[in-house]
């Protein structure tokens, strides 16, 4: 179905603070547009000061996260044909900023918490000598986590943060994925399990898988990162045999 020439209504959150409210816009569509194209068209034809954050428009940088018809998505990877199809005839398509983060203006939020949390994670610690040796199977486990584009849609969706605002207690899915990437790196020797339990609060996650569902990079956040880390925490703190072994050998438990 071609959308060329169709007039489409939008409701976009405009303004800042208490005065932010949905504002209506109407534009003519072209074939093959994504939601971000429509926002740009509104800027270029109607309101240049409409605030939106975007960079690559190719699903690689993770800047244009928003809630489209209530669903957290990247505006650059959401095709209008899909959104029009899901919106009841005659209704406007609604675009709001991510809800879990402090609102700045229009579609822009303050995502600096994610960067502050990342700063607390220790960098990789491996051999000093260059030319590390590990195989593709070992690389595969970690490479998935490194596909994260930091759109923070997972954080926005996680009810521990979105509904309960435990920003001081819980690292959130994105940074747990980062921790998994180091923890499962074949050359990393840093012991991260105590922090993952205490400082990064992995036990707050109760595996509802909302983060995995919204991940535009298709990372199995819950199954491959969070559950794996939870198991390591359990092994360390709650498995008596592992605990004795660790005390005796004074070693990080490797898998």
């Amino acid at each position, binding site marked *: 179905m071609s959308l060329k020439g169709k007039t489409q209504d939008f409701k976009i959150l405009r303004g800042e603070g208490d005065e932010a409210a949905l504002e209506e816009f109407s534009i003519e569509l*072209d*074939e*093959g*547009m*994504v939601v971000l194209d429509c926002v740009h068209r509104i*800027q*270029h*034809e109607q*309101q*240049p*000061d*409409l*605030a*939106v*954050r*975007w*960079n*690559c*428009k*190719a*699903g*690689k*940088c993770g*800047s244009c996260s928003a809630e489209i018809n209530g669903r957290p998505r990247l505006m650059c*990877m959401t*095709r209008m044909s899909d959104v029009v199809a899901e919106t009841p005839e005659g209704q406007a398509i609604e675009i709001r900023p991510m809800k879990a983060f402090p609102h*700045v*203006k*229009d579609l*822009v939020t*303050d*995502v*600096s918490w994610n*960067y502050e949390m*990342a*700063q607390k994670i220790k*960098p*990789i610690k491996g*051999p*000093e000598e*260059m*030319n*590390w*040796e*590990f*195989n*593709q199977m070992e*690389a595969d486990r*970690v*490479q998935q986590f*490194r*596909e*994260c*584009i*930091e759109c923070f849609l997972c954080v926005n969706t996680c009810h521990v943060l979105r509904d309960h605002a435990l920003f001081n207690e819980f690292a959130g899915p994105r940074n747990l994925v*980062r921790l998994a*990437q*180091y923890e499962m*790196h074949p050359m990393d020797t840093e012991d991260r399990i105590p922090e993952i339990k205490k400082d990064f609060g992995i036990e707050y996650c109760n595996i509802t898988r909302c983060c995995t569902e919204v991940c535009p990079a*298709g990372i199995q956040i819950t199954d491959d990162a969070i559950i794996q880390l939870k198991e390591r925490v359990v092994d360390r703190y709650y498995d008596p045999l592992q605990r004795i072994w660790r005390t005796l050998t004074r070693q990080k438990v490797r898998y």
Partner: protein
Amino acid sequence: MMTEEYTKHEYDVIVIGAGGAGLRAAIEAARSGAKTAIITKSLLGKAHTVMAEGGCAAALQNADPRDGWKVHFHDTMKGSKWLADWRMAEFHAKEAPDRVRELEQWGAVFDRTPENRINQRNFGGHTFPRLAHVGDATGLELIRTLQERGIHEGIDIFMEYTVRHLLKEGERVTGCVAYTRVDGDFHAFSGKSVILATGGITRCWSVCSGSWEYTGDGHALALWAGAELRDMEFVQFHPTGMVWPPSVRGILVTEGVRGEGGRLTNSEGERFMFNYVPEMFAGDHADTIEESDQWVEEVVSGKLATVRRPPELLTRDVVAKAINSEVKAGRGSPHGGVFLDISYRGEEAILKKLPSMHHQFKELAGVDIAKEPMEVGPTAHYVMGGVRVNAETQESNVPGLYACGEVASGLHGANRLGGNSLSDLITFGKRAGEFASKRAKDLAQPNIDNAQVQSAIEVMIAPLQREEGENPGRIYDEMRDMMQEKVGIIRTKAEMQEAIEDLKAFDERQEACFPGASRKYNSGWHQALDLKNMVDVSVAATLAALTREESRGGHTRDDFPGELEEWGKILNIIYMEDGEIKVRQEPLEEMRSDLKDAIGEVKAMIAERASEQAGGGQ
């Protein structure tokens, strides 16, 4: 005059830009003891580097032991149509391997060889498999690695700050002035050294693979501050961008598709690249489909190639022009491109080696590349030209002003080889950081000149103070369409002269535009300020292109179709004098004799291989 308030900052080294080059420069500066700041107009980790796909070229000798710095040096020089700065090409070929290994120690997880080392893939113009890669998302890996290293080096990072002016004291640069995107506040930075790492200019063309940031900020800042640019006529049109649907036109389709065996065909099903092998490369590419297929079969199964590579892997300038000619001759695909087919490699291989291409086509075009061919066509991808720098230190002709990465120039001459950009970022990012920090050691903290800051602020707030005017977005769209039409992949004198006149009109229009009065995250205001950069770098590129009356690499003149020997020894230098952008010519410096010998050695090796392989392939 009303005076505006601003916040002052003091640093040894200021890095403008947080892509691969900026991050690598800042890490080096901070590690050598300099108090370092990064100023970036986006959030950290979002820079255009994330869009690099295919890989990072370095003669690691993991995938083919016959490789080495001399071969990489030769390939880079040849790919540049011999216009590259041979000193930079030498540093690059020698130092890139250690820069890549260093990334691995900082957490980058490259794809592996069966011997558990960093794997390397084939790319156009590289004699041996040379590109360290992570599927087809190598840029993301590179920027994330540098970001994760950089935040632990004590660097102060100013996110969503846009630099609009460089401060000067006499001849030297002493800092910069920026506005914040979120609040529209102003900040003045005193810096003993300033490194430009702002990336490229390809947003000046409507069909481009660049992110919104590619508005030539660093190129313009440098010009305004008295620095010289070179090679601005050389803009790389990557042969394979998406062509359909219209809203995604220009988005990159990695050369990795062809490195993995992708076949280019026209509407008649013909593998047309066999008809476009230039004399310079005759003899070292396959003559027949059978030889091509055998090469792909050998390479994907991890063997050393015994026959010659497919002509799809010719350098980017050659392939882009070939596609352009096919479309012009009426043999294009339904949406004005040609077909690129990798589906014969099977879904499993495609999902492993080209996952983001698979995702991109499926999501944005509804095409499954594991089952059907892609439609592709040229897209403005990279500017070889930029700030003219000292090869060793990356300092420009303005003391204290450095440049590295795409905003700098010299390494790529008339045409850049794929994979040489990521290696450029880390090699020369490190050098810029090192030498900028060295310079800072001997200097006192410069004073911030209030008068300069106030006049910079005046320029920045001007669009907000108008009461009415055109939407900057409209000027932006029309200017990009104009550059696409008149200074695109094929150029003529008449069209470029028109472009110069058009740019004057756009300049007047941008000075009268009105983005609304709000300072708070006003996207239109940011765009209004970018327009001036875009006008000036477009003028620089067009003037240089008008001057070079020949066709070479990324610069193709319909009215001067061939390469001319005399232009092969001449550089265009672009500079600003009394507010006007000008161009002059300088002779190319002759290559050092030991490097000439190295080139001779490699040429002999390649000729010998080609004759053996041509025999073996029959």
